[in-house]
């Protein structure tokens, strides 16, 4: 399978549907594994890395769920292709920087991807739309169990699965959900949420994980600890917290609608106006404005059939995606900004103006608690 054919299609996690997918964009679980008795990639010599790569790659390719998969060594991918995969969350930023001795294997639906010789010998992930952490864990757990037959993973009686970084030891699992939280950002509650989530051993991060900025009101919530709890306990804890954040977001939107409807509609209307008429726009501005359009769809101001189009724009406007169809050398930032604006204009042309006159009274925001007092 060629990469160009894979990336011509939107991944299942973006085009598919799942529970609460208006707010929970995607759910992802990744497992870190290392081969017994082999030095970790960061310390291994090139020849050792290549040997590990061959062993793991052939085992992964033989998995029944990886039939017809895309499999490529990192040195054979162009920087642009690597970045496209990164923007789709199929490989990590760290993996994109790798060359000889590393590889990536993924299925055509783009729900399963295996990074070989990232920080660990094997990092495998499953990703799907909406809130379905249990389901994605089951997917990747099955792949892991199947791989056990042909690969012997480094496992310690007390410490569990051994990883290059002690922060991943134990289950080697990082479960995360990408949340779209414009309501909490607009009502300035998001920092409070971030802080309280951090206090209970979960992490909130930006769009592309550790150390990245929160753009487009997108936040990643994930478990911080991997040792001392079972996979099910970790996911259960995470699920609970995500459901709470979900409820807070819905309440925040409801309160905004009731108390600051003008501001809310103004923001959505302006976002629509700028996106429809801009001729140069940066990634950050585009994502932040698209976030308002996305919320507009949730609130019923735009037809719901536009949802996929807008969701796709979140990915299609990223730097590497903009250039993937072009057979030219790397564009400079200014050129990308014009291209991005043109793409958005073309896509939004098909979308009707927001029905700003009608303040939605129903919608997806099924708020339960309406006890907040009027602010001065």
């Amino acid at each position, binding site marked *: 399978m060629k990469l160009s054919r894979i990336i011509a299609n939107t991944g299942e996690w973006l085009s598919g549907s799942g529970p609460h997918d208006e707010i929970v964009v995607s759910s992802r679980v990744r497992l870190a594994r*290392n081969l*017994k*008795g*082999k*030095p*970790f990639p*960061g*310390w291994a010599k090139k020849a050792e890395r290549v040997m590990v790569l061959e062993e793991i790659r052939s085992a992964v390719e033989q998995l029944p769920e990886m039939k017809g998969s895309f499999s490529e060594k990192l040195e054979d991918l162009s920087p642009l292709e690597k970045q496209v995969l990164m923007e789709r969350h199929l490989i990590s930023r760290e993996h994109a920087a790798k060359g000889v001795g590393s590889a990536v294997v993924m299925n055509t639906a783009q729900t399963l991807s295996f990074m070989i010789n990232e*920080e660990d010998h094997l990092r495998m992930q499953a990703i799907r739309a909406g809130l379905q952490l249990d389901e994605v864990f089951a997917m990747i*757990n099955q792949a*892991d*169990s199947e791989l*056990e037959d042909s690969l012997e*993973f*480094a*496992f*310690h*009686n*007390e*410490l*569990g*699965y*051994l990883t*290059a*970084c*002690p*922060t991943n*030891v*134990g*289950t080697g*699992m990082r479960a995360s959900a990408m949340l779209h939280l414009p309501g909490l950002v607009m009502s300035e509650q998001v920092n409070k949420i971030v802080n309280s989530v951090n206090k209970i*051993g979960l992490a909130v991060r930006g769009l592309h994980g550790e150390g990245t900025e929160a753009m487009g009101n997108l936040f990643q919530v994930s478990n911080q*600890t*991997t*040792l*001392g*709890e*079972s*996979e099910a*306990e970790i996911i259960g804890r995470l699920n609970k917290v995500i459901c709470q954040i979900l409820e807070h977001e819905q309440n925040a939107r409801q309160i905004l609608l009731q108390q600051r409807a003008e501001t809310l509609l103004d923001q959505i209307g302006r976002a629509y106006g700028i996106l429809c008429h801009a001729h140069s726009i940066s990634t950050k501005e585009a994502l932040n404005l698209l976030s308002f359009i996305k919320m507009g769809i949730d609130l019923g101001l735009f037809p719901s059939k536009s949802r996929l189009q807008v969701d796709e724009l979140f990915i299609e406007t990223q730097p590497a995606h903009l250039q993937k169809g072009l057979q030219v050398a790397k564009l400079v930032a200014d050129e990308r900004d014009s291209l991005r604006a043109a793409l958005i204009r073309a896509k939004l042309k098909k979308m009707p103006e927001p029905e700003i006159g009608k303040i939605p009274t129903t919608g997806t925001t099924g708020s339960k608690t309406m006890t907040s007092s009027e602010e001065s």
Partner: protein
Amino acid sequence: MFCDVCKSKEPTVFLTQIVEGKMQKVNLCESCSKEKGVNDPTGFALADLLLGLGAAQEIEKNPVGVRCQVCGFSQTDFKKTGRLGCSSCYDAFAEGLSGMLKNMHRGNIHTGKVPEKLAAARLRKEELNLLQTSLDKAVIDERFEEAANLRDKIRRLESEDASERVNQGGEVASVGRMELFPAEETSPTKKPSQKP
């Protein structure tokens, strides 16, 4: 200001360490800092940055100069990168790691998934421990018939365990707790797998 070691050159490396709650400041010139092995001050910060503040200090709880016997990774490497060299490093640096793991995780015993091949052996080990406790108790209570039964059960389990280990190419665990009941057909030094 002069270097704290040679007291002649201008210091360029300013090292601040908090050891058991007390802050210690050391000012070193370039050549002395190299000599003392602190030529890469970013190395100190990186472990802290990646593993949480105080991680570098936990690492230092390992005996000075300890290296992983398998892959040669040193404590300095660990401190510099915040990563380990191979799976055996977890044993080599166990002393410094245990405190660190406790701080960064929710406990320091894995309770999640176990590879299927190891899961059976793990279960057997737990059962063995249970049986051994009952056996000890039976002996103290002078319930010898029950004790003999328990002993036989333990032997059976241990022989399964041993044969599995042989299959996996690992070393056979020596049996050291059978002395209480030397049975006629096996001497205590014999391995349980040799039982008829």
